[in-house]
């Protein structure tokens, strides 16, 4: 079990990592919008200098800008949900939304390694009472573990189920048998799982692949 100080430091690092990642994405979208506004300016200048106006082009630019603004709104909502999970140590919240958010924030880290993550749309709402911040942290860490074991062009498969009073998150990825190299990460995961009254299993049904199975009670 890790010390409170180490846990606290790791939690702060997690907070910083996710907010930095999302803010980077937000800035990418602003850069694209900036280029569109510049392009509109360039087209106006061209018209002022005798070139014909292409209304279809202007319309398409407008549609594309609106799409980027929607993208920006989704990112801001994601950041907002992530931040609000720190509001209280015990909350009743939607686990399906939390797991989907971890999937979304993990996508960027995965794309840097050219790894794909699959997570199906969960229709059922799964309500859970617990520590949302630590639950999102432990799921994220399990995803990081899966990413560390993945190679370029691999696919990580994540899923969420509910059975009676237990919800289960599964993450299937390559198993590179990196025990020793990942001891620190696995110790942190193990400590967090204990704190949130959950259970973690590592199942090797297949030589090449491993399933990380996180079981969480629906109420503390």
């Amino acid at each position, binding site marked *: 079990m890790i010390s409170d100080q180490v846990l606290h430091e790791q939690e702060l690092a997690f907070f910083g990592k996710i907010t930095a990642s999302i803010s*980077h994405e937000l*800035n*990418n979208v*602003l*850069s*694209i919008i*900036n280029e569109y506004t*510049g392009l509109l300016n360039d087209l106006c200048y061209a018209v002022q200098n005798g070139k014909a106006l292409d209304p279809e082009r202007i319309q398409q630019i407008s549609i594309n800008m609106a799409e980027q603004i929607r993208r920006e709104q989704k990112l801001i909502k994601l950041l907002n949900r992530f931040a609000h999970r720190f509001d209280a140590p015990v909350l009743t919240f939607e686990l399906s939304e939390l797991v989907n958010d971890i999937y979304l924030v993990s996508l960027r880290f995965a794309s*840097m390694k050219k790894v794909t993550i699959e997570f199906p749309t969960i229709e059922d709402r799964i309500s859970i009472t617990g520590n949302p911040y630590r639950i999102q942290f432990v799921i994220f860490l399990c995803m990081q573990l899966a990413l560390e074991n993945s190679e370029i062009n691999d696919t990580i498969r994540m899923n969420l189920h509910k059975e009676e009073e237990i919800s289960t998150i599964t993450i299937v990825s390559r198993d590179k048998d990196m025990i020793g190299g990942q001891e620190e990460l696995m110790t942190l995961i193990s400590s967090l799982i204990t704190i949130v009254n959950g259970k973690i299993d590592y199942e090797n049904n297949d030589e090449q692949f491993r399933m990380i199975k996180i079981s969480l009670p629906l109420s503390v």
Partner: protein
Amino acid sequence: MGIKVLLVDDEEEFTALLSERMITRGFDVDVTNSGTQALAKIDEKVYDAIILDLYMPEMDGIETLKHLLKKNPDLQIIFLTGHATLEKGIEAVKLGAREFMEKPVDMDKLIEKVNDAKTKKDILSEEKSKKDIDDLLKKKGW
């Protein structure tokens, strides 16, 4: 023929827009979406400036910079990134990048820096040619 620029960024919509706006301004712009593609491109063509993103999949901007400069130490590379931290900027310049600029881009400033890069490249080319001639003359004993 305009100043030859290679734009390297994985965000395709961004590169399409930036390249269009630069082409309108008379630049000859090629686009790649990865460091690996950029390394292949410089074998095909000589560029006056390379505009390089910091965070890209597989091979990030710093790694790409190192590989590019290993192939040609005289390359004029401008880092363009939305993740600007002073440390990354210093690291890039220490490794041989010419400039470090933040996104969103100020087009006028970018153009100025690309023009400066072209001037520097031309000076280096001239110096190299002069040195080659001097070496040849020495070899001939003239």
